[in-house]
């Protein structure tokens, strides 16, 4: 039997009962579409988490005050509540640790910010100009403050786009505007570019002021909330992290890690943790969608079994004329693979469309990857073979005479 004949037979068989073929295919379409869409949602989440973490800065180490939590220990004193990190620590890190390209100490707190009668409560970060480079802060307009501003405790501020939206919704040029933070007047130097992100952690809902200004007028203390460090080379991250820890141990007069009063966080660890969470999420979504694919496959098997029974006489005739068992098996196998293959193609289209619509109308970030498309193709063809095999084998084994007598 020629391949083209096989295709022709399949076409005739599937178009003879269009409604049934269509409904059976629908099961596969839904299965594949949900696999594609769910994996797209999962991978979209993964990608946006990774992007956000990357946007904080690359090769970044963050040193925060507070007790190191050993695994299993659930009670902590609250992050940043301790007053263990000082500006001298930051200077020492910059001076004594090799392989660092920038060090940016910072303090932060939430304050009421007022301008022109509008007011908002936002996070105010006091830091040094190096912060802009370390944390990937770029300017939309105006400029970041300089060392000179810090040296003379200038009351100047750089504001984030979210704060601008609250305080100066209609203004384009902010330079020179006045804002009041905690009752003290500051002059706006510039506006930072949008970084995205939302919720508490938004790097857009923030006001930057010089570190010494913040210490004097806002926090009234010498302790730092964080020291952000950029390591010059990815490969040196672990070394730098260890060096910083031992330096701080020494400076704080500590002897072992149980009593550490600071934490060094490695950005790549954060990325890894976050992506392992989203990977699990993707896997879970994929598994749920996979179940509907299996249900679709069972639908195929059901239809093929019905078809074999209905066409018993026909199969008997074909075998009586001289069709071999393998000809019959191929015919039914190609029929079920054709169903799943077509269902797969349509399903990929529908899944992709669903993902696109989700992004567009529900602003869920999605990402349809080639691998998930290839995977679904393979899986749907595989399902055709898997669930078509048993009915096809049953058809192939029919005895021609008994099949011809079948009523």
């Amino acid at each position, binding site marked *: *039997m*020629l391949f*083209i*004949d096989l295709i022709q037979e399949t076409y*005739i068989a599937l178009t*003879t009962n269009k409604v049934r073929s269509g409904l059976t295919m629908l099961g596969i379409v839904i299965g594949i579409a949900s696999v594609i869409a769910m994996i797209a949602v999962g991978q979209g989440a993964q990608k946006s988490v990774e992007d956000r973490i990357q946007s904080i800065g690359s090769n970044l180490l963050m040193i925060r005050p507070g007790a190191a939590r050993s695994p299993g220990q659930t009670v902590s004193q609250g992050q940043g509540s301790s007053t263990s990190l000082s500006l001298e620590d930051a200077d020492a890190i910059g001076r004594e640790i090799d392989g660092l390209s920038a060090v940016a100490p910072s303090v932060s707190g939430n304050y009421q910010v007022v301008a022109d009668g509008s007011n908002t409560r936002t996070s105010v970060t006091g830091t040094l100009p190096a912060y802009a480079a370390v944390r990937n802060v770029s300017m939309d307009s105006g400029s970041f403050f300089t060392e000179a501003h810090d040296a003379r405790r200038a009351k100047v501020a750089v504001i984030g786009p979210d704060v601008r939206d609250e305080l100066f919704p209609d203004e384009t040029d902010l330079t020179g505007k006045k804002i009041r933070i905690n009752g003290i007047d500051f002059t706006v130097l510039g506006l930072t570019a949008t970084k995205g992100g939302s919720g508490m952690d938004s790097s857009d809902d923030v006001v930057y002021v010089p570190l010494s200004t913040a210490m004097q007028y806002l926090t009234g203390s010498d302790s730092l909330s964080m020291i952000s460090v950029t390591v010059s080379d990815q490969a040196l991250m672990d070394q730098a992290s260890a060096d910083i820890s031992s330096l701080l141990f020494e400076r704080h007069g500590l002897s072992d890690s149980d009593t550490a009063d600071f934490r060094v966080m490695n950005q790549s660890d954060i990325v890894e943790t976050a992506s392992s969470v989203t990977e699990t999420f993707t896997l879970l979504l994929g598994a749920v969608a996979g179940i509907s694919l299996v249900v679709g496959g069972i639908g195929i098997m059901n239809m093929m079994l019905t078809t074999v029974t209905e066409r018993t*006489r*026909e199969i*008997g*005739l*074909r*075998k*009586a*004329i*001289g*069709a*071999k*068992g*393998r*000809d019959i098996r191929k015919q039914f196998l190609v029929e079920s693979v054709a169903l799943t293959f077509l269902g797969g193609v349509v399903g990929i289209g529908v899944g992709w469309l669903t993902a696109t619509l989700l992004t567009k109308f529900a602003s869920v970030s999605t990402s349809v990857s080639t691998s998930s498309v290839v995977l679904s193709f393979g899986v749907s063809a595989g399902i055709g073979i898997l669930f078509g095999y048993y009915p096809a084998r049953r058809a192939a084994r029919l005895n*021609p*005479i008994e099949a*011809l007598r079948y009523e």
Partner: protein
Amino acid sequence: MIECRNISKIYRNGDNETVALDGASFSVRDGEFLAIMGPSGSGKSTLMNVLGLLDSPSSGTYFLDGRDVSVLSEDELAEIRIRKIGFVFQSFNLLPRTSVMRNVMLPLIYEGVPHARRSELAEEALRAVEFPESRWNHLSNQLSGGQMQRVAIARALVNAPSLILADEPTGNLDTKTGELVMAAFRKLNLEKGHTVILITHEHDIARYADRIITVRDGRIVSDFPNRDVRSA
């Protein structure tokens, strides 16, 4: 060359036993034209199924071209059926909802004959049984009984098999069409030397054959040459 030795076929249905064939022995030379007659239920179709390699006897041996067919695999039997045997079933057995053309071509499809050649052969076979050309593309379930029978015969003839087995091929045909079909069988038999075995109830039809076998209760009760062979 067909040789049957002591062939029996017993159908068992629970406690019920039906002896459809009871020790039939005979042989058929290549190029013979044989008619099998006998009352209803005497085992003619059963015999035909055995000869056509569709069914195996309960006991006895069947040699086809000198080979004991009981040792052949399913695939080997299918191969012989497709290449050597043309079967006309008592109940036509056409593919439902399929065009006349495609029905006739079916054996060619499984034989792997190229497309272009297929329609040529199918048209030839349909012309031989005088099937009206206007209906070649009709679906098989839109035909009259006689038309179906002619399609079934065309299908059996299409790949010029060396052994034609026809179970009451003229049962649904009027005298004139019946004679036409017999003429087609006779022609194949005389011109190409193909063996024809046909079952019939009609003495008129049996008279085309060189030899007539009569079956009763699964046994061969008479087997003699036909002295006045009717010419086509």
